[in-house]
């Protein structure tokens, strides 16, 4: 695996409904090495399906009530635990509770306020004037940081034998700056005040290791693996670098503002899977893959007309040719056609199913998938 020199400690984790934990981890690790043991790894669920299954209808709540719902640690962990009760997990489907206050929570550690919706949250821009930059300071006593600790702790107390506990969705770098400044304003800043953007970007990565290490230590103390919303665990340090904001900008701006961040945030990690959120971010793939510590990518092709996977097979084949392992999300209806044209090497499939029988049947199908094309 490019960029990796570490040998990992392995330990076994017993999880109800996941008797194949060790073999599943072996397949995951083989995938990181662009190898296949017996078949490609496969995760059976749609993106964020556990969260969707656990969702209560909070549409009628006020803004304050919605925040209180998100902040109710007992309820959040209990909802997740209920959603997986009695389930059996096939393939490389790991039940993972990861504490979630929305993707802008990293910005909130520095003072941004979050507004909560039904499935996500938004930050209220914190830096309307450049004078506010001087106030940007990590505060681990802020309610959002403390709440993530509480959510993590609550889950760790309930997880034994049932699920893994992960860490939250961390977005340092340009995504954080966009949350601080407002995405539209940041676009203007890149042309009007590039040096200010560089200043904020430096601030947005300065404490990343401190924050990551803090939650990693909580998990490691309880023998947890390193895992987050992507559900791909590591015995070391797993990170999901991303830059969703980059869908708005040119390659030149990505190299100027985003690439230096990426080069920093991956350095201390064992496994980095870059979240490529759509064709706009895919434009920057050459820059992203120029970083040797980006071990793999998750390809998120989008919804609607962009979702059918067959249009993306040339793109996926290009990643395979570059020996970059890739997470591929496809509809079960497309699996046969996909298998027909694709080599399985380096692929980690995500497929949503309606039943356990479907999962077992799909496992049989991909176990026969072989050969290069």
């Amino acid at each position: 695996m490019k960029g990796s020199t570490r040998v990992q400690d392995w330990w076994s984790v017993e999880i109800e409904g996941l008797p194949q934990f060790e073999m599943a981890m072996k397949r995951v690790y083989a995938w990181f090495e662009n190898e296949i043991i017996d078949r490609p790894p496969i995760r059976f669920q749609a993106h964020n399906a556990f969260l969707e299954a656990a969702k209560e209808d909070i549409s009628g709540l006020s803004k304050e009530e919605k925040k209180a719902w998100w902040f109710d640690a007992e309820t959040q962990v209990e909802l997740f635990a209920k959603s997986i009760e009695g389930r059996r997990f096939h393939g490389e489907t790991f039940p993972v509770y990861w504490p979630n206050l929305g993707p802008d929570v990293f910005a909130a550690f520095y003072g941004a306020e979050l507004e909560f919706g039904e499935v996500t949250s938004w930050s209220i821009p914190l830096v309307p004037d450049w004078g506010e930059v001087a106030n940007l300071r990590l505060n681990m006593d802020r309610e959002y940081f403390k709440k993530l600790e509480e959510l993590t702790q609550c889950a760790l107390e309930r997880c034994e034998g049932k699920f893994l506990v992960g860490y939250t969705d961390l977005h340092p770098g340009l995504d954080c700056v966009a949350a601080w400044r407002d995405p539209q304003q940041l676009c203007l800043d890149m042309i009007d005040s590039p040096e200010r953007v560089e200043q904020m970007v430096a601030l947005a990565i300065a404490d990343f290791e401190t924050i990551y290490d803090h939650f990693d230590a909580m998990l490691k103390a309880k023998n947890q693996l390193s895992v987050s919303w992507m559900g791909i665990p590591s015995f070391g340090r797993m990170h999901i670098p991303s830059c969703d904001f980059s869908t708005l900008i040119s390659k030149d701006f990505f190299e100027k503002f985003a690439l230096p961040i990426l080069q920093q945030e991956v350095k201390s990690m064992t496994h980095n899977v870059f979240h490529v959120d759509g064709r706009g971010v895919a434009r920057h793939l050459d820059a992203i893959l120029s970083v040797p510590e980006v071990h793999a990518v998750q390809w998120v092709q989008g919804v609607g007309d962009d979702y059918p996977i067959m249009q993306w097979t040339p793109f996926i084949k290009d990643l395979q040719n570059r020996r970059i392992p890739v997470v591929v999300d496809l509809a079960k209806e497309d699996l046969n056609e996909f298998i027909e044209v694709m080599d399985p090497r380096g692929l980690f499939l995500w497929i949503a199913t309606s039943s356990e029988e479907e999962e077992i049947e799909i496992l049989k199908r991909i176990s026969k998938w072989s050969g290069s094309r």
Partner: protein
Amino acid sequence: MEEKLRAVKKAVIEGDMAAARDGVQLALDTGVEAEVILQQGLIPAMAEVGRLFEAGEYYVPEMLVAARAMQSGLALLKPFLVRSNAKPAGKVVIGTVKGDLHDIGKNLVAMMLEGAGFQIKDLGSNVSPERFIEALQEDQVDILGLSALLTTTMTMMRSTITAIEEAGLRDRVKIIVGGAPVTRTYAEEIGADGYAPDASRAVSLAKQLIGQGHI
């Protein structure tokens, strides 16, 4: 006059707000009609910006600074356009649907439409169906633009259109939709009149719908 208009056009395309404003002021001071500056300076400039975006040469930052330059010039023209009773290309109400706070795409569409000579009323984000209906009742609106960025909020597009139908206003307005999860198929399914994948093509769509003369 041609040289002055070329200077205005260049300033807008390059996103030079000061030069755009100065160029428009110079053109006005030397007797060029406001309507001419708009039609032969600002609007073609934004059309070129749209072309550069579709060609993959301009991205959102470049479009925004160009739109800002256009708006700074347009601000100088507005009093003259009002006095001369100049008609906009059409009247547009636009907003991001209820439950969705994303606005950058919607803002770009609004700016590009304004740059094409449309009069814009921007209702912002998290806009309820009731608020959209109110806006349609307040004025004669040609086009209603609905934006959503989440699969969970795009369903509000359908609810909004249904509410407009129930309010008896559907025949009075053309409805266009857009946003990352939105597709042409979905637009047809919910009874919208059009779908645009980006701000530049939203302008072409709006012009086409106005040109159909069904409003």
